[in-house]
């Protein structure tokens, strides 16, 4: 589904070169629910932005659902983003002066679906997140958890192959966070691949796999429960 090989990302200013990612390797298979963890400044956000085609990488290769994205122009990247990816952000990022229906409608407009198809998809997506009765409401009229559900509906409406979530529960209280996480698990169980950046070790252990990033590289450490372990060392000790 998503494969990055020897990928690097360098931010350059007049004076400084910052290596956000270096020799980055990852392979996410279809149907996986992968969490990405790591300390601040480790390169998680750069990785997610590159994975979401929101930023270009400096070198290496990135294959998204069989498409090599290297060298694609803005139009092709935008089309790929629209057709294959869904985004869920920490800050929900709903457009405040559009009602829920119109918010979910945004990616479908860029896809070029006709009005009937858009309506069907919007109603299905909002029903899936339990907000079908509030289509004409505006984001400001909803709680944080409900807003995040709308964002999930918006991400799902286009039937993406891969859902990218950037700390989707970061702005929610525990109860709302649990609800959102359960919803994501349902979506994954229905077949959608999910890649989620999180700081929360509780969430990381609930997913198929955890990728830990340190200094712009995937660490050998993987999370099993609330603490990090080295799988190689653990295997040797067990033997």
């Amino acid at each position: 589904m998503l494969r990055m090989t020897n990928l690097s990302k360098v931010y350059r200013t007049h004076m400084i070169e910052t290596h956000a990612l270096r020799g980055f390797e990852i392979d996410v298979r279809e149907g996986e629910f992968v969490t990405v963890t790591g300390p601040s400044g480790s390169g998680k956000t750069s990785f997610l932005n590159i994975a979401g085609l929101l930023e270009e990488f400096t070198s290496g290769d990135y294959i998204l659902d069989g498409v090599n994205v290297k060298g694609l122009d803005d139009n092709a990247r935008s089309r790929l983003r629209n057709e294959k990816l869904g985004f869920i952000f920490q800050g929900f990022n709903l457009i405040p002066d559009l009602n829920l229906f119109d918010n979910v409608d945004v990616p479908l407009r860029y896809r070029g679906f006709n009005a009937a198809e858009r309506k069907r998809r919007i109603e299905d997506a909002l029903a899936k997140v339990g907000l079908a009765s509030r289509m004409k409401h505006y984001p400001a009229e909803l709680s944080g958890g409900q807003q995040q559900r709308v964002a999930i509906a918006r991400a799902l409406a286009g039937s993406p192959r891969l859902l990218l979530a950037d700390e989707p529960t970061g702005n929610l209280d525990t109860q709302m966070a649990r609800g959102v996480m359960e919803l994501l698990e349902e979506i994954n169980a229905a077949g959608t691949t999910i890649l989620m950046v999180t700081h929360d070790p509780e969430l990381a252990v609930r997913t198929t796999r955890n990728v830990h990033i340190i200094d712009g590289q995937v660490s050998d450490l993987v999370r099993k429960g609330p603490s990090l372990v080295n799988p190689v060392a653990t295997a040797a000790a067990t033997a």
Partner: protein
Amino acid sequence: MLAYYFRLGLRSLRRNPLLTALMVLTLAVGVAASVSTLTILHMMSGDPIPEKSNRLLVPRFDNGPLDGWAPGDEPSDVQMSYPDVANLLKSGQGERRTALFGIAGPLEPPRKDMPAFVADGMAPTRDFFAMFDVPFLHGQPWSEADDARAADVVVLGRAMAEKLFGDADPVGRQLRLMGTPFTVAGVVDHWNPRPRYYKLVGGNTFGDADDFFIPFTTAIRHEADNNGGMSCSSKREPGYAGLLASECTWLQFWFEARSAADRSDLQAWLDNYAGEQRKLGRFQRKVPARLYDVMEWMEELKIVGNDNKLSVWLAFGFLALCLVNTIGLLLAKFSVRASEIGVRRALGASRREIFRQFLIETGVIGLTGGVLGLVLAFGALALIGMQGKEVAAMARMDWQMLAMTFVLSVAAAVLAGLLPTWRACQVTPAIQLKSQ
């Protein structure tokens, strides 16, 4: 997508209402200033008879004395002497011909309850009415025979006919003009082109329609005084006969060519005529005969003054200032939309789509500015029109200027929106999405 963006544009008018109102007002004021001055220029300089303006031609000779003339000097007179007019009328050149001059005389209404008054008219040939597409409400122009025998027939303007006869058809009725009974041959329908391009010399260029028309030959027979300008650069014998025999210039003349291509033939004939007159000693100056079509004649006589053109330039300069302000306001308006742009980009909008969306939004602002600008332009034209009757005639907006208002407003808004829209497209979505 265009309809979707248009709806988003309408919705965005409600966002930052103060900023939007400022932009719309700024655009509207600039557009109103430009459109109102442009309207007056348009009314003054537009082609008054586009279907044949290149076939209606004014000849011009220089029959002045050698005194005070140097080779290369342009002819100073814009009218013609009677001998030249008489020769041109007899020439048979062109499809139609007319001489004309303004006349004014006492008119005694047939109604006894109405006192005599002075009416303004014109003395052309029968061809005049066909040459300038003059519409008739009743009757028709006088006949060629009337021209030939200088008959006492009159064609009335519609306003004058209604004043004298009410709604009745007055054809065949009589009235006394310049002390002589005239028979009404016809009534001209509403016809008052502005400027009165067929008679640009002698004032009243933007004035009211003529009260009446009588045959040129009849006016000459009655020794009607010229109600217009006259230039005499050499001595003349006294009396009307002296005027007719003199080189004084006081008459205007038009040819109608069969086609624009016939102009060169007419020019050749005029050159030949001028050469003959030079041999006869009448034309002393070696100035070639000139020929002007309607638009060239209006340009030659500077119907549109430099001050009119200057005021249009100034108004467009003001519009440019308004645009600079609008650019600033649009930059402010779009800068607060950076997060929305980031979201749209993440959801699949390309830079091109963002560019289209925001450019259409500026177009919607332009349309709104156009509506307000139109209202302001009507107000400005009404104020300008209060300066006088002639100005009021020019301060009228036709459908072309109406359309121009919207085109100008939208074009101005889109032009002002280019830089802010381009900047909106440069928003880095990743930064905007993270900063939420």
